[in-house]
């Protein structure tokens, strides 16, 4: 499976990507929202795992940019956040095409199981 892991915290992004690669997945990493957006535009990923709170260009910005240009519908985006997010924000993200919002920390195996379940 081709995964894009977006997190401004390099330790988090690296840890997950190592795990995924060990489990024979193809995992790309981006630590910056703007850079992540161009990676999303220029590649096709089976799943995009995305942090929300990032400086300069946040996860919200990525979603908004894709949504506004009608580029979000064919993408599977799962938000991973360490914050407690309000129901309202969660619904806003889902309305714009985010599949689901999960909390960090999360067990990488549970995350992979979950992705396999939602990926048709």
């Amino acid at each position, binding site marked *: 499976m081709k995964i894009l892991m977006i997190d401004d915290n390099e330790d*988090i992004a690296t*840890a997950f990507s190592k795990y995924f690669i060990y489990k024979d997945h193809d995992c790309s990493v981006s630590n910056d929202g703007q850079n992540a957006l161009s990676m999303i535009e220029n590649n096709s990923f089976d799943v995009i795992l995305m942090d929300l709170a990032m400086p300069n260009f*946040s996860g919200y910005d990525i979603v908004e940019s894709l949504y506004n240009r009608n580029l979000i519908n064919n993408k599977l985006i799962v938000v991973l956040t360490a914050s407690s997010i309000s129901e309202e924000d969660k619904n806003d993200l889902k309305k714009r095409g985010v599949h689901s919002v999960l909390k960090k920390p999360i067990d990488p195996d549970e995350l992979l199981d979950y992705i396999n379940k939602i990926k048709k």
Partner: protein
Amino acid sequence: MNVKKENPHGTSQYARSLIEASLDPLVTISPEGKITDVNEATVKVTGVPREKLIGTDFSNYFTEPIKAREGYERVFKEGSVRDYPLSIKHSTGQITDVLYNASVYKDDKGNVLGVFAAARDIAERKKVEKQQLDLTDATAKTQLERTDAAAKTQLDLTDATAKTQLERTDAAAKTQLDLTDATAKTQLDLTDATAKTQLDLTDATAKTQLERTDAAALSEKLKGVAKDEFSAMVTHELHTPLVPILVYCKMFKTSMLGKMNEEQANAIKVIEKNAKRLETLISDIMDVRKLDLNQLKFKIDDLSLDEFFANLDSDYRKVLENKRCLFTTNIYAKNLVIKTDNLRLRQCFDNIIGNAIKFIPENKGKIEIGCMKENNSIVFYVKDNGIGIPPEKQKELFQKFYQIDTSERRSIGGTGLGLAISKGIVEKLGGTISVESDGKTGSTFFIQLPSKLIM
């Protein structure tokens, strides 16, 4: 003639000084959603310097960026919005709840140049409503002050904060004079809508200035802000370092990073166990805090009890059978749907079952969960054959950080918050929680939810 190019902020010198005179955060936004101009109050409330704000996305500075975006999009669509609630995020994390009033402004050809948006502090506004009488008098007084300049006000304002505000009042007064002089000249620049908003704002500014002399109220407000900031910080900043710790623990455990000897493997297990405990502790502390501040949010929905228990059964069956514990689920009230918060009720069960698992005897434990209908209320229960809870300890059991402190029990661990949180949740859901135990042969926890919740 390119209006935008000649006047990149779309604001005249007059508008600029008017913007600056306001103590409320004011911004102008381009049709692309970028900030084109701000006043000092915006700099203060966001903690970001003016030159860094200009050119960036307006929505960046709110706790709910998408909602902020929807707000200004609506202004462009409908011409204006009133009392649009948003929360401004300071660079340090401080949050200010505000109501936005905004309208589009146009060039002389009627082309929309952007949005003019003014934020009003909700805490301030609530006070305005409360002191309506005072304010009617005070507004008249302010009119005087505006022409009568600063001397009179000086008496009322003693501390440094107040002094700054005085300067503001001066500036406002000056602008007010400029306004009369320049009305004809600036009329060209301003559409009716903008002018109206600006009048509202000048009024609002005057009102706010009066209120802000009340230093006590201000510090009270700051305390509230600090609380929110703390909660948000704890959740995000304390959870974040645990993420890579737990992933690397997992990698060590599954030998991804090489085979380990027994001692190393045990060390990793201890690290992981404690990192997980810290994770639970952070979540629990946040829940306790939210309960204390009355900020814990509930999402009341239809809940099928059959489904609720089917989920519990499937989630716990394997774990408990591995521990050779006899696990039974008895739904005495079948086909019932109640109105409650599924996840919060589940959280209570997880806490109680989690405790039961800690105290049942090895290889011969018994845990039974279920529910029944009783006098038009629903009674949920979790029964175990653990070491029991002495009657004299049962009341304290639901207090924060309470753990019955025999060394045996201490060693089992836990945050000591689970039952306090469960009690808080159940009470918010309108129910009661209780325990029955003779202190020797197990205990039974009951959660009773009232009849009005039953469909």
